């Protein structure tokens, strides 16, 4: 089975009215993403802000948003003509697109999408001329409209428009040309546009998660390498479960996955190429290698190697080569994670007598302990924004928390019996982790929580799940 994930790219198109969108779709299907400033439709106010202008009033307070999520209307996206596409009937796809956007925004905790009973059908010409009188009466502050059109070449064009209901203005718009297999991504891109425009935070809905799918009895869990969209859809297994697989991580270019496998009873790290399905041993060596992590530029892989009962952190060129040893304490040094600028590495070590978090320079120099409170600290993960390090804290259970890279401002975010191994969403505002249940089932599930700690949600997976790694935003 040939995988085609990275052959498929979204083409962004400027929406110059609806007719313009169709024209753009036919002339600019490009293999490269082309983010463009949306052009205003005739007769409408340009939404773009010049520097120094007063910002628009519509804005989500990302710290208070959880207690007062913004009411937003996301009606079904109309289609100019109902036709059959490889993704389904176009009108049905239009309804599904708005459902996906609704779920994304709702799950962020910052939005309160109107229920179906408050929504009304939107006629195709109405997409760029909203019925503000009606929407104002629903209590919605923001309105997301759009359309779906099937193109002659088999692709789909999805238009996405965001309106400020009270000000009766368009805030932003984007168009996407997608192959039918990627139709859900158009909705995630639209939700990302709305989210970033209204919160000021970075996008994260159009992203994927690699994780370990689990099933079977606690004493003999069957574990498969798996990948899915951030919302749990489009999941598929990459390994068959015959060997234990652990701790996958997606490369920054999203073309490969480094993970640990017990293949041939030699627990070692492998690099799996998503496109070809081929894999190679990362470090040809008989020693135990584990705890992999890419550098932000994708050139290096950090890992731990155990030798004669001592575990240290090494780095090796991602394409293979000679490992360089970065730590040499007699204890267990593991869980390395690069800072987003690649200059530093957070890791855990029990050199003090118990697991604690340390930070060092990327060459291994300047190792400094940053966690000092009671309890043990493990699995540090540097936020993509650079401002925080997430970790697992052990002591009366496992909990996910965050602290600053200097060690201050520790906050706990979760309260499960065993919440382990946080991974950051691409925007550094949401974390995913796995929660293991107590007792004989030992089942694990994937959960997410945002930085406020109050929006804990289980991520739907077909089987159980563990060891999530949240990949970057997709191009």
């Amino acid at each position, binding site marked *: 089975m040939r995988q085609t994930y990275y052959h498929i790219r979204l083409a962004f198109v400027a929406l110059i009215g609806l007719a313009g969108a169709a024209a753009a779709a036919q002339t600019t299907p490009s293999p490269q993403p082309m983010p463009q400033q949306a052009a205003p439709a005739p007769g409408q106010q340009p939404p773009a802000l010049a520097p120094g202008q007063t910002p628009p009033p519509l804005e989500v307070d990302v710290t208070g948003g959880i207690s007062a999520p913004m009411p937003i209307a996301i009606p079904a996206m109309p289609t100019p003509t109902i036709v059959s596409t490889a993704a389904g009937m176009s009108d049905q796809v239009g309804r599904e697109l708005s459902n996906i956007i609704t779920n994304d925004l709702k799950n962020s905790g910052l939005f309160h999408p109107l229920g179906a009973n408050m929504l009304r059908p939107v006629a195709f010409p109405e997409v760029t001329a909203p019925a503000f009188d009606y929407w104002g009466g629903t209590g919605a502050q923001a309105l997301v409209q759009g359309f779906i059109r099937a193109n002659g070449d088999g692709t789909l064009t999805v238009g996405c428009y965001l309106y400020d209901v009270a000000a009766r203005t368009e805030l932003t718009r984007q168009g996407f040309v997608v192959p039918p297999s990627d139709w859900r991504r158009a909705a995630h891109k639209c939700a990302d546009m709305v989210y970033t425009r209204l919160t000021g935070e970075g996008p994260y809905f159009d992203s994927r998660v690699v994780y370990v799918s689990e099933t079977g009895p606690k004493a*003999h869990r069957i574990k498969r390498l798996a990948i899915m969209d951030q919302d749990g859809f489009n999941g598929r297994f990459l390994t068959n479960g015959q060997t234990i697989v652990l701790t996958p991580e997606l490369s920054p270019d999203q073309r490969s996955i480094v993970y640990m496998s017990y293949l041939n009873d030699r627990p070692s790290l492998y690099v799996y190429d998503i496109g070809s399905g081929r894999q190679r041993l990362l470090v040809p060596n008989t020693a*135990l290698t*584990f705890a992999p992590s890419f550098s932000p530029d994708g050139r290096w892989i950090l890992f731990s190697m155990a030798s004669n*009962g001592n575990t240290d952190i090494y780095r090796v060129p991602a394409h293979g080569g000679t490992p360089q040893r970065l730590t040499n304490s007699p204890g267990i040094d593991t869980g390395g994670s690069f800072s987003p600028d690649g200059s530093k590495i957070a890791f855990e070590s029990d050199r003090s007598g118990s697991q604690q978090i340390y930070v060092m320079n990327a060459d291994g120099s300047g190792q400094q302990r940053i966690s000092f409170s009671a309890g043990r600290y*493990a699995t540090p993960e540097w936020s993509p924004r650079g401002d925080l390090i997430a970790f697992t804290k052990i002591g009366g259970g496992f909990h996910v928390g965050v602290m600053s890279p200097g060690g201050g401002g520790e906050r706990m975010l979760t309260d499960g019996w065993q919440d382990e191994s946080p991974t950051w969403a691409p925007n550094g505002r949401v974390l995913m982790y796995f929660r293991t249940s107590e*007792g004989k089932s030992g089942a694990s599930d994937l959960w997410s929580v945002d930085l406020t700690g109050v929006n804990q949600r289980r991520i739907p997976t077909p089987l159980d799940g563990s060891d999530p790694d949240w990949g970057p935003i997709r191009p």
Partner: protein
Amino acid sequence: MAKTTATLLFATALVALAGCAHKRPPVLPPSPGEQPMPPQGPVGDQIMPGSAADFQRSVTSDTIHFALDQYDIDPTARAILDSQAQWLMRYPNVRVTIEGHCDERGTREYNLALGDRRANSTKNYLAARGVNPARVSTISYGKERPIALGSDEASWAQNRRAVTIVIG
């Protein structure tokens, strides 16, 4: 076709070995200078000397246990490993793998390292008792393969273990 031939040859070999085995007294130790029998599974109700089954019935236990987050060999574990070392000295061609395991109260990656520590301290003890370390391989399972399923002290104590497996 080739596969069928191989299967037939293998079956013939098994018959030959089994026939050979029946002629030997079941638990006679190898005479000086004689190579010990290659390890075999039980044949009929007999246990081949030097086999995994022979190991199981000859040693005090195939498993030793550890305290929380520890990997030192305590006196109980020492007695068990002494019996394992004695057996291994009798069959110098037998190789073993030592599995290191942990309870569920450690994080996954740390437990892989801790399981490696436990397997290695077990290996080092056997080596100190005269077993050639080249015969002993180690593998850490971290917390991936518990044998007791509860989330309680008794279960955790059972799961913090190193298991010696005869591999031939």
